[in-house]
């Protein structure tokens, strides 16, 4: 299993990650080696086995009543924002 540089570019784009040329070359080698090691999973017969969906099969998640209750204030939620204005997060233009 060997990744191409184009595949590395594609994954980085999906992951919204800017990578340097050095990082791309390194990740191509390292991820290829890791995926090669993981290939042993393919040799295992899992026909008829259901995929795990939880670490706790058989326990259901309790849900709380859907009732209004106090939450965090707008000011506290915005307090960590790198850029905000008029009680909103400010971002560069999304549309041309």
């Amino acid at each position, binding site marked *: 299993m060997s*990744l191409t540089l184009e*595949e*590395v570019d*594609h*994954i*980085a784009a*999906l*992951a*919204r*990650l*800017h*990578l*340097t040329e050095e*990082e791309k070359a390194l*990740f191509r080698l*390292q*991820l290829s*080696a*890791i*995926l090669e*090691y*993981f290939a*042993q*999973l*393919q040799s*295992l017969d*899992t026909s008829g*086995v*259901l*995929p*795990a*969906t*939880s*670490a*706790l*099969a058989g*326990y259901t*998640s*309790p*849900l*709380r009543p859907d009732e209004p209750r106090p939450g*965090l204030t707008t000011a*506290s*939620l915005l*307090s*960590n*924002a*790198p*850029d905000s204005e008029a009680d909103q*997060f400010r*971002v*560069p*233009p*999304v549309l041309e």
Partner: protein
Amino acid sequence: MAALTDLTLTDAVHSLRRGDISSRELTSAYLDRIQRLEPSVHAFLTLTPDQALSQADLADHRLATWRQDRSSQLPALLGAPLALKDVLCLEGVPCTCGSRILENFIPPYSATAVERLAQAGAVFLGKTNTDEFAMGSSTENSAYGVTHNPWDLERVPGGSSGGSAAAVAARMALAALGTDTGGSVRQPASFCGVTGLKPTYGRVSRYGLVAFGSSLDTVGVLGRDAQDVALVFRLIAGHDPCDATSVSLPLPDMQLSEQTGLASLRVGIPQEYFIPGMQPEVEFAVREAVGVFESLGALVTPVSLPHTRYALPVYYLVAPAEASANLARYDGIRYGPRLPAETLWDVYRGTRGAKFGPEVKRRVMLGTYALSAGYYDAYYGQAQKVRTLIQRDFEQAFAQVDLIAAPATPHTAFKIGARGDDPLAMYLEDVFTLPANLAGVPGLAFPVGQDSQGLPVGMQLMTPHFREDVLLQAAHAYQCVTDWHTRLPAL
């Protein structure tokens, strides 16, 4: 008189109640020790000495009032100084997760586990070092420098809760919270010679824990012995309406018995955890500890967990896949620094590319690939099927035994830099701890010996879901007749 910092948490709480010591004295003793040792150990990312001392004074005031009129109930940890891994939010105190992408993040609320300790009267000394977003086995992936193992400062403390483990081992905190997604409490506990509990998945609320792998993450406890760990665990466990994955099952009786017998406890030894290439001294110490269990009345039998070898590839597909989704939120919009750019797309890419460290990028890439169109079934889908087989292994083993005993790690603490730039070599560090996370079962690591260099060796116990009481009682019984947990690094 021994140093104040030599008291266990259990003893310190009693001494505080009797008035033998004040919380200010105890907290000051810890702050002094931190000031002396922190330059060489670097267990902490943030220290909160002023807040700690005012919490201590409040505790002392409350203790003095209580001594006048003992009709009221005192909180369980009143006045006891603890540390928190820096992936758990404490309102108003920076939470970096060991990452540059949260270098200026101040949480607007506290994690439930942290809040419960605060309600119990704990004094918080600060936030401990961690591999970035808990991704690593040595704290070498922290963006803020490595933590040094108190037993040998040239060695790693393990990870990712390496700061918490080192702080407890070096007596820079009475106990600490950590988190365990693939071994991040048990492996550093083992490397630092302390007792570390990874609870059952769902036992402790994760509200306010910065998410890494949501089907695996647990909040755990590191302490000096099973008694101290039980004291803290009892307080943080239990259902939380703010975490839909927390389970509302009653906690079993956690009063550990002074009686050391383990009569008729069935202990299984999985052959798959004694692998070629492991350090012989580790195997020797673990087998000796099993002998102690037998002498205490346990019935020891071999068991098999046949899919153990697949836990590593399964984990390193499932955890990065979940991480790639969880870490999508760090994009320079709502918190953390932002790299200015013309377009939103370039803000995302630029901020993440500049502020995530290499291991986080690698895992986000790996996880994104495993979930991407065309590869999902072959990688993520197959991994989740094999995870089912690993879960069945545990079900079948626990049909025969009450407890599984195994090494916590294949070897003792390694030298800083020894795993170099080979990510797979680092992933192999977790080979004995990953299966418990995939199956959701609780695990406990504690010291059972030392190697020829004087480094601690850790053993790991595992039980069926929600039987932390059996885990802690078994380790307590062992610790009542041995003294490995009382050994101290020379600092």
